[in-house]
């Protein structure tokens, strides 16, 4: 029997709990109820006691657990992250005849933007089919939690295609070692959250969080949902939820109307997309220049206080708020790739400052799906020693222009940085308030504040409070250490570094181990 590479059902345990009306998955360290926030395995708020064990991320957990991988895999190129950039990178690299792995935490490729529920369409479908034809092997349900690059002059000695990059991949609570010649990091982005009073209440989620839950099978019929925050995600999420039967009460965008109109004039294609999404929820008011000042509730959110252009209090069942995207650059930082303006610095070939380590998509800058696809293609070509076409270079340049305009259009207004009160929790893993952090930091600095309070040292490893504190206080990120994602003690125990003889092993081209799986594409 071939190993099970993916699970059949997209429904996660979080989605099932949600549909059953369960509001809180866990109790926080200071005793307050918590439910899912990010919906994509980053925030660790969905940890639930399952199968007799604690600390399972319900948003990533499905009834069928994928089987472990074989303990050792060698390939030419490993691609980490199965969103558009990763799919394009893996497909293009594999089309050269190279052996390619595509590793993603989700069971099926698509990433957050092309999540498969309901079936991808258009470009998504074309790319996923191309990936399936390419011969790349998909590893669904696999989390990369450690990585190492062998550096140095040893490679000047002429060894053909040494497997100098090693990844440790966890699947089904067993880890495997993947040795490859090059990696392409396409880990995408997560949502940026800015703390405000009440943001830890159950049923306050991210925009990506409600969208992910909906696509995971969570039911939203009849729920009164308020969507707020900033950025291009607001409209498609409103459309998705309306289509899913939710009663979307209002959509509040903090950016002023004038900025949005200017953006629409500069990017007519994006404006048409926006209009198409808007058509799906015409009954719902869209309010620019408006933001959430506070969420009020008890065991869950009950009301939302809006501020800005329209100040009013609205009764809700669900509040979804997100302030744009924050790059997932833990893996490149772990490998000591240099950053530039908070994003991974790459060459024209998408190569980072570490040779053999490529990066494509949002970790290099938040520039949208077309740019991610172009960067993925370029990385896939470069990792297999081919040059990008002019079409790809132009697409990437357009992406850079879009990135700058997105940054300008959806720039966060200063009021948002003042919403959190001293008693507002900033670090949700350790329940550390802004007041506690500020009191120490004002005198002794940010590192002292984190050390004394353990802010950022919980399960999510500062993935939520780190970017928030960067916005609120200008604090830089901390060092990254393995495990990049929590794994079992048994997996840490078993992880060993490959010996030089293994690294210098030549990889046979086109030999990706077991045969590629066929990727199910629903229409």
């Amino acid at each position, binding site marked *: 029997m071939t190993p099970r590479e993916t699970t059949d059902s997209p429904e996660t345990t979080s989605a099932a709990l949600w549909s059953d009306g369960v509001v809180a998955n866990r109790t926080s360290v200071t005793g307050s109820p918590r439910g899912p926030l990010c919906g994509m395995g980053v925030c660790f708020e969905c940890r639930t006691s399952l199968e007799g064990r*604690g600390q399972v991320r319900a948003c990533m957990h499905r009834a069928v657990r994928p089987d472990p991988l074989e303990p050792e895999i060698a390939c030419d190129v490993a691609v980490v992250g199965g969103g558009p950039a990763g799919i394009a990178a893996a497909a293009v690299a594999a089309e050269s005849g190279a052996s390619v792995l595509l590793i993603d935490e989700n069971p099926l490729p698509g990433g957050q933007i092309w999540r498969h529920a309901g079936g991808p369409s258009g470009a998504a479908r074309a790319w996923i089919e191309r990936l399936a034809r390419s011969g790349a092997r998909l590893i669904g349900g696999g989390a990369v939690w450690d990585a190492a690059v062998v550096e140095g002059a040893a490679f000047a000695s002429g060894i053909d295609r040494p497997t100098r990059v090693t990844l440790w991949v966890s699947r089904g609570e067993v880890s495997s070692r993947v040795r490859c010649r090059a990696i392409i990091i396409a880990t995408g982005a997560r949502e940026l959250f800015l703390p405000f009073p009440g943001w830890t209440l159950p049923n306050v989620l991210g925009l990506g969080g409600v969208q992910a839950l909906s696509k995971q099978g969570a039911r939203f019929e009849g729920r009164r949902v308020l969507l707020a925050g900033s950025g291009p995600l607001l409209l498609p999420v409103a459309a998705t939820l309306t289509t899913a039967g939710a009663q979307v009460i209002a959509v509040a965008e903090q950016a002023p109307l004038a900025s949005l109109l200017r953006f629409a004039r500069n990017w007519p294609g994006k404006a048409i997309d926006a209009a198409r999404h808007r058509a799906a929820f015409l009954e719902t008011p869209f309010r620019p220049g408006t933001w959430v000042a506070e969420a009020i509730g008890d065991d869950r959110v009950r009301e939302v206080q809006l501020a800005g252009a329209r100040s009013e209090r609205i009764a809700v069942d669900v509040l979804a708020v997100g302030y744009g995207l924050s790059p997932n650059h833990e893996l490149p930082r772990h490998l000591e790739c240099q950053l530039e303006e908070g994003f991974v610095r790459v060459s024209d070939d998408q190569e980072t400052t570490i040779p053999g380590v490529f990066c494509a998509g949002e970790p290099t800058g938040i520039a949208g799906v077309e740019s991610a696809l172009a960067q993925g293609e370029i990385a896939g070509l470069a990792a297999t020693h081919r040059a990008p076409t002019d079409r790809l270079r132009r697409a990437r340049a357009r992406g850079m222009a879009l990135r700058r305009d997105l940054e300008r259009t959806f720039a966060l207004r200063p009021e948002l940085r003042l919403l959190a009160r001293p008693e507002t929790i900033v670090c949700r893993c350790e329940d550390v308030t802004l007041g506690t952090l500020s009191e120490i930091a004002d005198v002794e*600095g940010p590192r002292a504040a984190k050390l004394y309070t353990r802010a950022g040292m919980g399960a999510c490893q500062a993935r939520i409070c780190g970017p928030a504190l960067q916005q609120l206080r200008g604090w830089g990120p901390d060092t990254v250490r393995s495990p990049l994602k929590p794994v079992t003690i048994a997996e840490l125990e078993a992880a060993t570094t490959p010996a030089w003889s293994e690294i210098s092993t030549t990889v046979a081209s086109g030999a990706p181990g077991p045969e590629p799986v066929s990727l199910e594409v629903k229409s």
Partner: protein
Amino acid sequence: MQNYDVIVVGAGLIGAACADALTRRGLRVLVLERGMAGGGTTAAGMGHLVVMDSPPAEFALTAYSLEVWREIVPHLPEDGEDDPCGTLWVAEDEDEMAHAKGQARSFATRAVRAELLDARGLSQLEPSLRTGFVGGLFLPDDRVIYPPAVTRFFLQRAIRHGAQVRERVEVRSIESTRPGCMAVHTATGRIGTGQVVNAAGAFAPALTPGLPIEPRKGHLVITDRYPGLVRHQMVELGYVKSAHAGSGASVAMNIQPRRTGQILIGSSREYVGWDSSINREVRGRMLARAAHYVPALRELSAIRTWIGFRPSTADKLPLIGEWEPGLTIAAGHEGLGITTASGTAALIADLLTGATPAIDPVPYHPRREMPHDA
């Protein structure tokens, strides 16, 4: 006339405790820390306060330190996380059990409470242990603290007694100007003082060339929160053998329940200079050793690994005492610096004020003869 009687170099737990003890004797103290108070080896350690019965000088210092700690802990703030969970020494075989019995006898000589356990008593006390161990020794008065917060407590108390603390100030050199006058040099100038205490831990030799201290690297792994799974700080009775082993990497079971419900797992020891990378093989052996005792650990979610550098001496005893007139050393505490910070500070305060030390300081003299085999 100088502004300070004593400059303490280094604000780890040792330096902070020294500053606290010295100010309480009425001395004017300045603490200089090149990084962040409690941010070096102190932040990397386990925070275990433990009495060790041998060698005799280690017994004397750890037992005395625990006595001093008992006066301190009632004053600790909440974030000091004092947890009187005790230490459970686990015996894997009859040899180790014999060793435990010897320990119990020697603890009795200093009125340190210690309770011998048979196999049954052991599993009743700590059900997370796998069955099959011969027995153990329980020290109910050992405890666990959160060292960075306790460092901060000492410094704040010292400040209330008139001390000054300056962080991010690197001392570049220490000099003796004339009898009774010392000075330290920093990037911004020279600061005069009567005495200097070098409490810079593993960095102490950079300021006092010739100090026999080497960094000894260790790994720690911390889990997510599993309240109640492990109840006591546990150490294997083979620990002393591995802690005092030679130059190769050694590991020993050292499992600590944090008051947060997290479980901290150690320990490893390696002499590899200042290489701060994670050694996966050593970490793996360390975890295997821990899981050999508590198999349930293997299923737990590990969230962080980090490393730290113990300031190690060849005979595994700290360097406490006068190096040269005006310069006193309080460094080289290896893996027992958290425990012995309190006793070290009391000794330093006695030595600097001419009081009679509560225990004989001679075995810790920084110019003592060191073995050459390590």
